[in-house]
């Protein structure tokens, strides 16, 4: 009898709770439809609206304001005056491009159907230290190609690998074949001049063949909020030894001002590996992993979002200085000689 009474009481309580929950859920549904929408601030698709959107995207996501000592509010004040709704699309683009060039960053671009805004002074204002026709002379015509890389063996038994981009995937099998081909060589020259970057994983894949142990190669951060100083802790970047054939002899990496982004990272990794020397000009930098976004009018924007540092926690955005600073001379060019390659060869042959 007592048990039945208790059962009935529990049942009544359960029913009350469920009915109360139903009412609460009903009330929530009503409230939800009224004011629970998660939305983003939408800028209007006008000349001024697009300017505001561009400025805000960079204000919240760009990662080098502090390191470059840029007063972004002052930039806004200066450029806002130049926007009005009567200006043409091309004028709007020009003013936006000028505003973006204040960031002095090769990873900052504005893409439209008629033009791409860019800042390339980091290589345009310096000697190129690279000649494609000279490279052809060194490679001759019987060079090999694998994974988009050209390679050959010079007469003095030095291997030469020309890697012009990290855009394309580098296969482990291709690397095995390349390094096996270089097996009789006494040293290897890796020419990454004019390599504008690509995927970091491709740069790592190649660099991993030059270490036998896991190395600390740098640090990386990301933004955790909209503030200019909202960054995560520095996360360690390590380079693990590659699976397959690994190079044990000397390596010389050739650089110039057009070595940028993932290629800049490659130089950073290689400087941590044993038996590696860097020769050429300072690299272009580009140490902010870029993200993409867009404006209300559909123009696409790219910007540096995640800063990367070397193993001493120094920013590599402004480039990496090689151990041997060498430039291409006009005399050598006239004689059909690449001063930087020749310097690397003499360095190897002197060892």
């Amino acid at each position, binding site marked *: 009898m007592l048990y039945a009474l208790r059962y009935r009481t529990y049942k009544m309580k359960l*029913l009350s709770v469920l009915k109360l929950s139903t009412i609460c*859920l009903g009330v929530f549904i009503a409230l*939800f439809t009224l004011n629970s929408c*998660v939305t*983003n601030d939408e800028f209007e698709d006008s000349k001024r609206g697009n300017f505001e959107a561009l400025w805000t995207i960079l204000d919240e996501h760009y990662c080098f304001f502090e390191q470059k000592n840029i007063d972004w509010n002052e930039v806004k004040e200066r450029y806002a005056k130049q926007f009005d709704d009567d200006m043409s699309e091309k004028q709007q683009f020009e003013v936006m491009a000028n505003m973006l060039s204040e960031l002095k960053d090769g990873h900052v671009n504005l893409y439209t159907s008629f033009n791409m805004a860019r800042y390339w002074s980091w290589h345009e204002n310096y000697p190129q230290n690279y000649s494609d026709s000279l490279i052809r002379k060194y490679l001759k015509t019987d060079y090999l190609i694998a994974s988009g890389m050209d390679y050959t063996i010079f007469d003095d038994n030095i291997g030469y690998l020309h890697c012009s981009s990290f855009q394309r995937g580098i296969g482990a099998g291709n690397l095995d074949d390349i390094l096996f081909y270089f097996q009789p060589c006494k040293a290897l020259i890796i020419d990454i001049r004019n390599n504008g970057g690509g995927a970091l994983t491709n740069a790592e894949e190649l660099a991993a063949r030059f270490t036998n142990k896991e190395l600390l190669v740098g640090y990386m951060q*990301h933004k955790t909020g909209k503030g200019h100083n909202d960054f*995560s802790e520095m996360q360690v*970047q390590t380079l693990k030894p590659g699976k397959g054939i690994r190079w044990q002899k000397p390596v010389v990496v050739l650089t110039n001002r057009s070595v940028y982004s993932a290629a800049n990272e490659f130089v950073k990794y290689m400087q941590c590996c044993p038996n590696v020397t860097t020769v050429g000009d300072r690299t272009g930098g580009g140490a902010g992993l870029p993200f993409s976004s867009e404006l209300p009018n*559909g123009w696409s924007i790219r910007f540096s979002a995640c800063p990367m540092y070397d193993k001493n926690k120094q920013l590599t955005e402004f480039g990496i200085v090689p151990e041997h600073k060498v430039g291409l001379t006009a005399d050598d060019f006239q004689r059909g000689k690449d001063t930087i390659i020749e310097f690397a060869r003499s360095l190897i042959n002197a060892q």
Partner: protein
Amino acid sequence: MKHSFLTILLCATSLCTQAQDTLRTGKIITNAQMVGIGTVNQLDTYLSPEEYKGLELRYLSHTIRENGTKFSRELVHQSHLAYTKNRADNNQEIGGAYNFQYNVLYELGKWDTSQGSLKVKAGGGIDANLGFLYNLRNGNNPAQGYANLNLAPTIAANYEFRLWNRPFQITYEAQVPLVGVMFSPQFGQSYYELFAKGNYDHNIVLTTIGCAPSMRQMLTFDCTLHHTTLRFGYLGDYQQAKINGLKYHTWSNLFMIGIVRKFSITKIIP
């Protein structure tokens, strides 16, 4: 006397054998297989600050298992594909998701009217989601992966009635996730850091109704033609979250159509 005892025994045995041939379990399973088409509005500030709008196609399998008591179990599988465009109509996003729900519902009441009967149920269960959104133009942040698991209360009201000597049914069901866990990259964290480097930064987030106010609701109408029950309805699916400094929403409004099958299980013993 001896003969009549044997006759009774044989009859009893034969009756028992006959009764054990089949076992009616009393379980009734109602399954609806539906497809839907409608509009979708997507926002993922990791990919773009802009809302993308477009078309969504959805498949839904909705099963209710009743066992003769006031408790019933509900299993939902649904998947969708969405194709959306930005405001300027010069870029696209492709999204897809799978959702699984397992709910236990209790019949709160049943009220008979002159035309039919109304049932109200309430309960709750788990709501699991897996999905992706791919932006066709972005570079290092081209896609976003979604994974979340929620505890979600559910209410359902069902009105069965007859008109022109035919059975009809109107059902409304709503579900609101209360608490859960959700995967999300940090505000400016790249997938390269997450998956190539394995750098964890608050990527599994505890969600509540406050930071992830989401809701699913469905209103359906069943009518029987000959021996086939057809189901038409509206599905409103509003999934939202505001975590790690990022904002997400997927608002779907769909017209659904499908077939309902109702059956019971009879166990046959060899």
